[in-house]
């Protein structure tokens, strides 16, 4: 039975390559699971919903029902899953996962190698699969990927007065920033608090840890050495923290930025009161939609800047789906996650701006945008395609990553607010991180 279903799945997931744009869901055999109820826990949020609207098609094809037990943001879902592990209530089959979270969960999820056919896996980007692998086990199937690039308000760069003043002040032409130093210069140049800000950054939780991490790498630093000793309290680390602090001190970012998360930065840029915004691709179509955004039609996009270490920042990760070891019908679960990550389903998400994990979808989505005359989204896909191939790197895929992050971010905030020097903040975080890594058996 398993072999038959998997064989069908192989054919099913390969088929779309032959019928780009023309495949109807009913052509694909995802197996039959009549009267079975698949219990799932999914990440919730506006940009993830279009995919979930497709679930009823899978139900119609397979005869199964999907019971969505929860639909929360990743941080809340993470807490819930940890409670399930503790209480032994992993009585569900499929869960949303993330490359940054997955290493924490030990062996609660099955290895998808051998469960999802090799031919299907071959259609996914190699890097996305590599990042989904923990201790040699493919514990998750990548749904879409994330990496940030720099959106900017084009009209500011076309303005002659801006060009002249900037050149006079900084001695080089005003063009979208290529380096993190230029990013800072320009953000401070454009800022006019409290009505207009140069940029903004996410200021708490793992969000600011991630931003710090990518800037640290761009500046030539690393979080750990090869023996898992923390090394982020280096000169590169101090320079990275200083970047955040300088912008904060110059009032180039809103004063409340240390409470900001992704929605705040996205909505802030859409409100037209921010010049530069380093953000995910998922926001692109929102930014360019006149109903939601005041900067629609006035947006430029360049790759994330290069640090003084000569490297471009590229903090990346993937949203994924996993199947629990305790699942009572792994075939149905495998069928379900194959459906959710199929070519058609990734096209649904890609047309909203989410970055696909299947190589072919990149081209097809771009072709669809080009066909519709949507040059902005073509540019978005071209820019993000380059950064996914050349710049992407994940945080260390280690069990205590979130714990390490929780030691880092409050101290980054303290340094930005001037309660500690960047060096003191990083030294203290490094000392705590060392204990966490020792407790976790890393050194």
């Amino acid at each position, binding site marked *: 039975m398993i072999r038959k279903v998997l064989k069908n799945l192989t054919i099913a997931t390969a088929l779309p390559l032959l019928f780009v744009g023309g495949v109807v869901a009913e052509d694909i055999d995802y197996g039959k699971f009549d009267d079975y109820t698949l219990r799932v826990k999914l990440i919730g949020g506006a940009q993830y919903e279009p995919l979930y609207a497709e679930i009823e098609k899978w139900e119609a094809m397979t005869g199964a029902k999907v019971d969505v037990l929860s639909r929360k943001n990743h941080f809340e879902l993470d807490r819930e899953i940890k409670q399930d592990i503790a209480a*032994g209530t992993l009585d569900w089959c499929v869960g949303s996962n993330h490359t940054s979270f997955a290493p*924490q969960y*030990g062996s609660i999820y099955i290895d998808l190698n051998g469960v999802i056919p090799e031919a299907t896996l071959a259609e996914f980007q190699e890097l996305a699969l590599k990042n989904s692998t923990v201790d040699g086990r493919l514990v998750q199937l990548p749904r879409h990927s994330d990496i940030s690039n720099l959106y900017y308000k084009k009209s500011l760069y076309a303005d002659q007065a801006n060009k002249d003043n900037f050149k006079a002040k900084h001695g080089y032409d005003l063009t979208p920033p290529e380096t993190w130093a230029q990013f800072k210069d320009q953000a401070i140049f454009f800022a006019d608090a*409290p009505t207009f800000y140069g940029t903004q950054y996410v200021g*708490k939780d793992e969000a600011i840890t991630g931003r710090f991490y990518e800037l640290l790498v761009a500046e030539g630093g690393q979080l750990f050495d090869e023996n898992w000793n923390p090394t982020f309290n280096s000169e590169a680390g101090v320079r990275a923290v200083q970047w955040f602090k300088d912008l904060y001190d110059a009032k180039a970012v*809103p*004063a409340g930025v240390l409470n900001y998360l992704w929605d705040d930065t996205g909505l802030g840029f859409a*409100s037209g009161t921010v010049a530069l915004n380093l953000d995910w691709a998922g926001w692109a179509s929102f930014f360019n939609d006149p109903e939601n955004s005041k900067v629609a039609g006035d947006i430029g996009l360049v790759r994330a800047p290069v640090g003084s270490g000569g490297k471009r920042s590229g903090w990346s990760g993937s949203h994924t789906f996993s199947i629990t070891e305790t699942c009572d019908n792994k075939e149905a679960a495998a069928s379900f996650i194959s459906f959710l990550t199929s070519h058609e389903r990734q096209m649904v998400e890609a047309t909203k701006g989410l970055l696909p994990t299947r190589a072919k979808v990149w081209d097809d989505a771009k072709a669809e945008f080009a066909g519709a005359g949507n040059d902005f989204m073509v540019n978005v896909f071209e820019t993000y395609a380059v950064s996914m191939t050349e710049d992407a790197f994940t945080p260390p895929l280690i069990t205590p990553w979130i*714990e390490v992050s929780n030691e880092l971010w409050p101290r980054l*905030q303290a340094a930005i607010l001037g309660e500690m020097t960047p060096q003191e903040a990083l030294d203290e975080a490094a000392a705590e991180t060392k204990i966490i890594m020792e407790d976790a058996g890393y050194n």
Partner: protein
Amino acid sequence: MSNIAKGVPFWRKEQFTPFILLSPAILTLMFVVLLPLLFSLYTSFTGYRLIRPESLYDWVGFRNYERIFSNKNFWIAFGRTILFLTIALNVEFILGLGIALLINRITWGQRTLRTFMMFPMMFSPILVGYQFKFIFNDNIGILNNALQALGLSDGAIPWLVDKYLAMFSILFAEIWMSTSVFAILLLAGLFAMPRDPLEAAKVDGCNAWQVFRHITLPFIMPFAFIAMTIRSLDVARAYDIVDVMTGGGPAGRTELLWTLIARVGYDNSRMGQANAMAYVSILLSILFTYYFFTKLLAARKYMGGAE
């Protein structure tokens, strides 16, 4: 009689009747309160981590307690929680007393006003948190916009970031939500107050302040202490509002015991250590409750009530 009594099984004897009648309540309490308490006490002596259920049996003795007692951040959060409690209770008491006295004086529309007054209590703390997060937002919040529009401020005041303003904002939300607890209980006290002493005092020539200070206030103090006991337990476990508004940040400036405990227990999965912190926090609550009950008994004694 004694022969009959001898034939009766011990559990039907009169002296056991109260225990038998109370046994459903005692058993329920044991299951829902005592067992979880004992279990969490046990885990506080283990290296229990949520993501490794087998660590429940890693006995570490007092290590969790040693770690938190030598942890500066824990003690800062502990001290801040006491400060938060003290300010919230006092301000709520004063405002609640004022509202109760005002409502007590009006003769028309009192019931409607009492209902209105309870509205903030009807909202979930999470909603209250979001409401004030929006009001106090430095960029798009209505408070800063109003201040700028009225010409009272020309900058964005960082309500949720500044060292003092962030605590003020959270206190404001907490007080807004729960002042009516005091007002309702104190109003009940005022309704129950006998008129004779008041009239006698007036006949004796006392002014309004003297009547309030020496008759009204002592009479309603037992009600105030009941409200304080309830609210001290509530405020000592303040979490929702703080988590939504600031998450305990920035840089731990609004970190209270329970935001810290939740982060350690859930985000860091160190449930053993979080339970050790929770036990210290429970001691704090017990101390406050004991203090208010002592004051309550003293106040009732003063009024000629309980001995």
